[in-house]
Structures are given as C-alpha cells and as structure tokens.
C-alpha cells in the first residue's frame, strides 16, 4: 500500500474539517436565510435541528461502507456528493428546495466514522489514542471555525459561501482519492473487508462492550452537540439579570454574552480531545488501572480505566453545573462549564482510543454504531433540560437518571478479563466471529 501514516492522518483530518465546516454552514447563515425567506422562529428551529437528522443512520451506513470499500472511496464520495449539492443550493431560490438540499449537505457529518476507520487502519495500538484524538479534535474545530469565520468572510451572502464550500469540497475529494490509501498493509485491508458483512454488523451491535461504548459516547459527544444547541438559550434565560448587570444591553448584547459563555464548552470539548487521546496512550504506557471492577489484565485495560474516569467526571460536573446554576453565580457556572467541556473531551477521546482496539476487524462498523446511535443524545438531552421546571436542574436529572445507569453498565460490561467482545446477545448464533486480540 502506498502513502505514509502522517500523510493519511493529514488527509483524513482536512477532509473531516471540511465536512464539519459544511455540516454547520447552514447554521452559520441562518439569520441571513431567515431574512431572505421571512422565516418564523419555528422554521428556524426546524432548520437548525435538520443538521443532525441524517447522522445516526448515515454514520452506521458510512462505517460499514468504509470497511467494505475503503475509507478513501467512501470519504471522497461523501465530499463530492455533499459538495455538488452545496453548489446546487447556492443557485436555489425556493426555500423548500433549499431546505432539502441543506439536509443533504448535512450528511457530511457522517464522515467522522470514515476517518476514524481510516486512521485506525494506519496507526498501531500504542499511538492510536493520540492519532484518533488529533484527527477528531482538529476536525471538530471546523464547526467553530465555520460559525466564527464564514459570516465574517461572506457577510450575508450565504449563496457565495455555499458555492465556495462545495467547490473546495470537490478539490478535497479529488485529493483524498489521489493520495488516500485504505490501509497500511494489504493484509489489514483484506481482514477488514471480509468483516464488513451483515453478520459482522449484527455481531458488533450485540456486544455488551460496544453498547457500553456507545452509551459512553452518548454521554460525551451526544452531550457536546446537545450543549452546543442548548447553552446559548440557557445562559440568555437563566442568567439574564447577571448578563445585564455586566453591561450588556438589548437582545443583541445578551446574545453575544450568552454565545461567548456557551462557546466555552464547545471549544474545550473539541480542542482538548487530542490531549484525551494522548492521556489514553499514557495510561496504556504506564499500565495505570486505578478503578475497581473494570478489567486489569486485558492488553488495553488501562484505556478502559481512563474512559471510566472520564465518565465519572462528566457526571460529577453535570451535577456541579446544576448546583452552580441554582446558586446563580455566573463565574462559577462558567468555571464548571470549562471543566465539563474538558471532561467531555476525555470521554470522546477515550472512547475512540478504544474502538479500533476492541474491534480490529470491523473498525468502521463499530465506529458507525458507536458514533451514530450516540448522536441521538443531541436530541434527547435538550428535551430533558427543557422539561425541567427549573432550568438549572435539568443537568442533575440527566446525570442521575441517565448517566449514572450508563456508567454502571460500562463498569459491568468492561469487567471481563478475557475477550470482552465475546460477551453479548445472540451468543451462540454469532459464536466464532470475535477477533479479540489474545492477551500477550
């Protein structure tokens, strides 16, 4: 196979960055689109939520496709398809058609699992945490960069932005096809291709450890995208008087303050993610296994412990966010949010430092399942936050009634000292499909 691992990491990261930029580009221009088509608040809410409609099912399919056809072809197809529709949307003058086109462009968000599979095919076990962290963390910045830069570069001219985003996506797609290589060796590529069948998919979906990792990712990335949507409104309502007391005036002023406070969680969750992967590598290198119950003898046991610590920290900081909100002290709330963002990154980075090691023959299918279903959290958590009588206690409810059971399940599923992949539903039917690495 041609190529060098750093080049492959670079291609995957640039591709993912650009896909994330396209994924959230609609949101960046929603005020301009709303002004052009005279949209109501309800229409705007629908437009905002449509960005993640295709993600759960799309990531499952994309993960399978990357195992079956290789990451370069799959990634290039996503980039080219979304790029062409983005170009088409720049010429559209009918809102209904524009809405459908932007939903299709948002499919770019499924590319995450393809890049995870690509990186996993090139990096070895002792450096996978940092490599996946650099890929995902740097790529995730595309969302923030889009929100920050696109309106400044293009002003209200969203049509030019969609045109340029689409054209550059085609260039990146061509580069991915030209220089991308599916795996480090042909042997590795063949093993993964063979594992990418329906039986292999059912196998992964029914493993307790895969379900535990999916819930862990729902606690971290699912929470991250939920907070992106929820926090600006939370600060604007929950700390309205405190924000006014700081000298911000009017709707626009409160919006600027609330958006800046909310961005703390997003920035930390994205930018600390490579560090989280590095910490997973460090735990592995040092052999740290401090938690009770979780396996200590598996070849990757320290990584399981690192993720367990991250999940506990996420739950505790969610409780802290509720307490800080109830006290009504804004700086404390922001400090807790900084910690929560960092702990969320520990969860996201820790999860995908494990996925390729647990399912080395089906990294795409596993990444699709774990990275896809978990995004439902982005829809579920805001609904729970919003249903709480007091706006501050929603975090406490999610922490106690969802995260605590998720963590208990994780500890239970990660307790096996030998081949946790062999434990799951449909055991007899799927017997023999496990490709668990033997303890050395």
């Amino acid at each position, binding site marked *: 196979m041609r190529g060098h691992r750093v080049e492959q990491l670079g291609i995957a990261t640039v591709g993912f960055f650009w896909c994330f930029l396209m994924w959230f580009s609609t949101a960046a221009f929603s005020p301009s689109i709303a002004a052009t088509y005279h949209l109501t608040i309800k229409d705007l809410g629908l437009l905002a939520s449509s960005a993640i409609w295709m993600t759960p099912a799309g990531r499952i399919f994309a993960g399978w496709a990357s195992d079956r056809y290789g990451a370069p072809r799959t990634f290039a197809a996503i980039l080219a398809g979304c790029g062409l529709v983005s170009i088409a949307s720049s010429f559209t003058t009918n809102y209904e058609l524009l809405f459908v086109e932007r939903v299709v462009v948002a499919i770019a968000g499924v590319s995450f699992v393809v890049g995870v599979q690509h990186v996993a095919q090139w990096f070895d076990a002792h450096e996978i945490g940092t490599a996946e962290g650099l890929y995902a963390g740097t790529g995730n910045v595309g969302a923030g960069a889009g929100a920050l830069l696109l309106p400044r570069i293009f002003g209200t001219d969203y049509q030019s932005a969609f045109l340029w985003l689409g054209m550059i996506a085609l260039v990146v797609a061509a580069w991915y096809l030209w220089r991308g290589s599916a795996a480090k060796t042909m042997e590795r590529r063949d093993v993964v291709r063979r594992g990418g069948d329906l039986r292999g998919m059912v196998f992964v979906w029914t493993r307790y450890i895969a379900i535990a990792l999916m819930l862990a990712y729902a606690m971290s990335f699912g929470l991250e995208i939920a907070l992106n949507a929820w926090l600006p409104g939370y600060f604007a309502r929950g700390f309205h008087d405190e924000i006014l007391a700081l000298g911000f005036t009017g709707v626009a002023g409160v919006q600027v303050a609330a958006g800046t406070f909310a961005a703390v969680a997003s920035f*930390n969750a994205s930018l*600390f993610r490579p560090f989280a992967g590095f910490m997973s590598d460090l735990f592995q290198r040092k052999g740290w296994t401090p938690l009770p119950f979780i396996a200590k003898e598996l070849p990757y046991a320290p990584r399981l412990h690192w993720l367990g610590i991250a999940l506990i920290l996420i739950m505790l900081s969610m409780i802290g966010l509720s307490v800080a909100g109830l006290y009504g002290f804004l700086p404390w709330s922001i400090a807790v949010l900084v910690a929560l*963002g960092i702990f969320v990154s520990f969860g996201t980075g820790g999860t995908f430092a494990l996925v390729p090691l647990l399912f080395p023959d089906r990294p795409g299918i596993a990444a699709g399942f774990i990275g896809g279903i978990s995004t439902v959290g982005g829809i579920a958590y805001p609904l729970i936050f919003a249903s709480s009588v007091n706006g501050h206690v929603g975090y406490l409810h999610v922490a106690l009634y969802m995260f605590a059971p998720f963590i208990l399940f994780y500890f239970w599923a990660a307790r096996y000292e030998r081949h946790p992949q062999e434990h799951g539903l449909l055991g007899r039917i799927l017997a023999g499909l496990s490709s668990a690495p033997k303890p050395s």
Partner: protein
Amino acid sequence: MNPVDIRVAPREPWYKYGVAVLLFEMAVAIAVSGYSLYMTFNGLGGFPGKH
C-alpha cells in the same frame, strides 16, 4: 492491530509533532476559557465590540 507491548515500544518520530499540535490546541482552549471567565467579571470592557 499490531500487538506490540506499548510499555517498551519506542515512540514514532511523528509523535512529538502530534504532541506539539495538541499542546497548541489546548492553549487555544485555555485562552478562550480565560476570556469567557474574564467576561463574567468585567463584561466586554476593553475588548472589540464593547457592549
């Protein structure tokens, strides 16, 4: 996956550059957090866009 023993495996040459990138990204995140915390005490006073 290569079953190499991570505790004795030497780090690859790319690793130090990867660590440099992640340190830079952490620094950006800390700067954004610091700015937001500053804002909770002082508003935007002095920063671009004064509200």
